[in-house]
């Protein structure tokens, strides 16, 4: 199992009933796609779609670049390891 932490910021929390941080266990081999599928099942497919179409994603505080045409192809090339922290960064609104 791969144990990662997920952080939800800003409006992402409207999809998680306010949860800002959680630890998730994923079966190996775990990729960002595995995590998105998990998030879609835990919360809603709409949330998974929102992440794929609108949110930046940081892995250990570095932005990742990945395929965004649909949840099925999102993040398949990004391997997750135990201890990784994934941050969901919705469209921003400072100032």
């Amino acid at each position, binding site marked *: 199992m791969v144990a990662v932490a997920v*952080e939800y*910021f*800003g*409006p992402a929390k*409207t999809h998680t009933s306010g949860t800002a941080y959680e630890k998730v266990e994923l079966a190996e081999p775990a990729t960002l796609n595995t995590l998105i599928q998990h998030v879609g099942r835990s919360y809603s497919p709409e949330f998974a779609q929102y992440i794929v179409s*609108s*949110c*930046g994603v*940081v892995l250990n*505080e570095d*932005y990742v*670049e990945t395929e*965004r045409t649909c949840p099925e192809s999102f993040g398949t090339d990004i391997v997750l390891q135990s201890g990784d922290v994934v*941050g969901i*960064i*919705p*469209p*921003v*609104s*400072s*100032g």
Partner: protein
Amino acid sequence: MSVFVNITDKPLDSAEVLNHVRDPHAGAIVYFGGTTRNTFEGKEVVSLAYEAHPRLAIRTLESIANEAKAKFPSVHKIAIVHRTGVVPVATESVMIAVSSTHRKEGWLCGEWVLEKVKERAEIWKIEKYADGDSVYKENEVSNVLGRT
């Protein structure tokens, strides 16, 4: 230090921000304060509340300030400060100050910095209305998909 950035949950102090950029080589200090406006599309706004990614947002503000210094060579110092938590009407959530040799680059730099902050800073606001409703906002210029 020619760049000062901070994120704080305390009320912002414009005099302090101006003093961070004050410089004997500068002929101008340009200041922007973003304040909570009391209406949005006809609805009465009572406050804005901000949250920030504790580390990414500071890193982004610092990058923006350093990019601005490279882009505007006659700018001496830049300060960017953003507040988190509840910001009441007519109160600043963000302050940007720039000191420059001459005023023209100061104005241009200040505006450039503000637009980049609105595009990139990992900070989110909730608008709270008099009727009790609240909603997360999204900046028109927000760009999170193109971030590196």
